[in-house]
């Protein structure tokens, strides 16, 4: 179904792999950076939206509105007024969600591209052989899946002498970075339902991502960690106050 993304992703991964001394871990890192560059406009929009939602909390109009429509019986009225204020300030509450939805097919395509490129089974190798269009592919296959202590085609565990079980280092890193990334990009301090959902996502998403990283190929977990770190870095860069900008909060965001 996603072959139109998976095939070019796989070719790109294998091409980068061939350029980087046949190191699949580095290929995943570089490819993740490239994907983030291409999807930057969407991510930037998501972050702007999150920032605008946060700034809304200090908006005097919003505070007055909350005071005026207190109580459960006024919840619908408050919601209607809130939408009007969004419109007035040029905030699109959905603009924060849509970029996240775009990430889903990219995530699935990345998962398939990694498993297909590493080709651990005959059908995967057949898929790779028929989907790859690089001239030297016959000599690149099988791809070297070793990176640091990891086999990128297998769930990652670090075995330390004296400790009887393997430590899922990447899954732990995914959980930590997902938490910070999610917390930074989720609007805080509000009593409306969407913000509460956001807080739930901040709680559950790192756990889910860590679980996925625990049971699936380490290559996917590496993609998660690098992607999260890039998002965090991007967030800090975008949050840095600009010298020429007035220090007034609640600046409206244009569509």
């Amino acid at each position, binding site marked *: 179904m996603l072959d139109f993304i998976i095939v070019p992703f796989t070719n790109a991964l294998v091409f980068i792999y061939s350029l980087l001394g046949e190191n699949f871990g580095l290929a995943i890192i570089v490819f993740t950076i490239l994907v983030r560059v291409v999807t930057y406009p969407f991510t930037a929009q998501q972050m702007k939206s999150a920032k605008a939602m946060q700034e809304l909390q200090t908006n005097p109009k919003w505070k007055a509105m909350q005071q005026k429509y207190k109580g459960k019986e006024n919840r619908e009225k408050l919601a209607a007024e809130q939408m009007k204020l969004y419109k007035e300030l040029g905030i699109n509450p959905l603009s924060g969600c849509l970029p996240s939805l775009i990430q*889903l097919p990219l*995530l*699935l395509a990345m*998962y*398939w591209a990694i*498993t297909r490129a590493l080709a*651990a*089974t*005959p*059908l*995967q*190798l*057949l898929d790779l*052989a*028929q989907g790859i269009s690089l001239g030297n592919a*016959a*000599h690149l*296959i*099988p791809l070297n899946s070793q990176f640091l202590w990891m086999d990128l085609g297998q769930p990652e565990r670090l075995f330390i002498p004296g400790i009887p079980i393997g430590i899922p280092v990447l899954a732990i890193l995914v959980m930590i970075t997902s938490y910070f990334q999610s917390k930074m990009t989720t609007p805080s301090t509000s009593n409306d*339902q969407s913000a*509460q*959902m956001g807080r*739930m*996502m901040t709680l*559950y*998403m790192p756990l*889910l991502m860590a*679980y*996925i990283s625990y*049971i*699936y190929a380490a290559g996917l977990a590496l993609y998660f960690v690098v992607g999260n770190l890039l998002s965090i870095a991007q967030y800090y860069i975008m949050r840095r106050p600009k010298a020429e900008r007035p220090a007034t909060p609640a600046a409206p965001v244009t569509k």
Partner: protein
Amino acid sequence: MKKKHLLTLVPLLALGFLLSACGSAVAAGSWPGISYDDARGLVYVANNQAVHALQVENGLERWQFPAEPQGGFTTHATPELTEDGQLLIGGYDNILYSLNPDSGAQNWTFTGASNRYIGSPLAVAGIIFAPNADQRLYVLEHTGSLLRTFTTKDPQWSQPAGDGSTVYLAAMDEVLYAMDAQSGEELWSLQLDGTMVGSPVLGADGILYVGTFDQSVVAIDTATHRELWRFATQGWVWGSPALIEDQLYLGDLDGFFYALDAASGEELWRLDTGGAITGTPALYNENLIIGNEAGRLFSISLDGRSRELPLPEAYQGPLYGSPVVAGEFLLIGLTGNESALIALDADNTVVWNFIP
């Protein structure tokens, strides 16, 4: 549970489900491995979560291993029957199993490998050579005790070939290795410039034939350890060639089927089947039988005259594996079909089918 928790959990569970679906697709990563035991009249089928022993005359199941599905056990490697009456099964759970072919009872297991068994083991003179995707060939006694390992640079997916004194291993590191069957010592090796996933075939005259991903078939003289000839195919060669009466027959991933003169490598004829060929042809009633990824089955005379054997609509699907001749029947493994296996008679009628 509160509504807000549900609203959050539902999309997250959907994501988990999507990735889980991907995961299960990966687990079923190959086609049925089929072998025939003429003495017992049994067909062994390694297919996903079990190995089945079927009566050749009617396809009825004699036994299944494991009796109940076990988490993690998956197998596709063709079951190998040894001279001393063991059925060897390589699993995707990194375990090599020895079974009693009469009952399916487990004799022993070898758990020393760290990756999947894709290719079948070879048993020669009481010694088992089991190639593994962890880049090691495990050399075992017939009791399953480890004698030694032989390491290559890349995974080993193909069954080794042997003549009793020497074992030949075609590995994915593009090298063909020859080793002493008793001591395991490497005798010589030859760089072939192409990944190999198909088993080498050894002729009576000591010439070894193997296909590579470098779009070629290579003939090697095992006495001099040198290439005799190399034939350029249209596509990558996956399956093993079939050596019949001084001629070599093989297919490639571009869908071409070739007949070559085994002595010189000269092309005798070729046929475009219209779909990738990953299997090895079988000789059935003096005709070569081969299937392709497009689900087309061909019967080809040794001089190149072909006719398609149409399969009923209920048994459509890619034909990746090698056809197997079992007594008077022809066994065809199916992929992506409810049935894993069908038995055809000489009139191309489906005599029985097996649904796992």
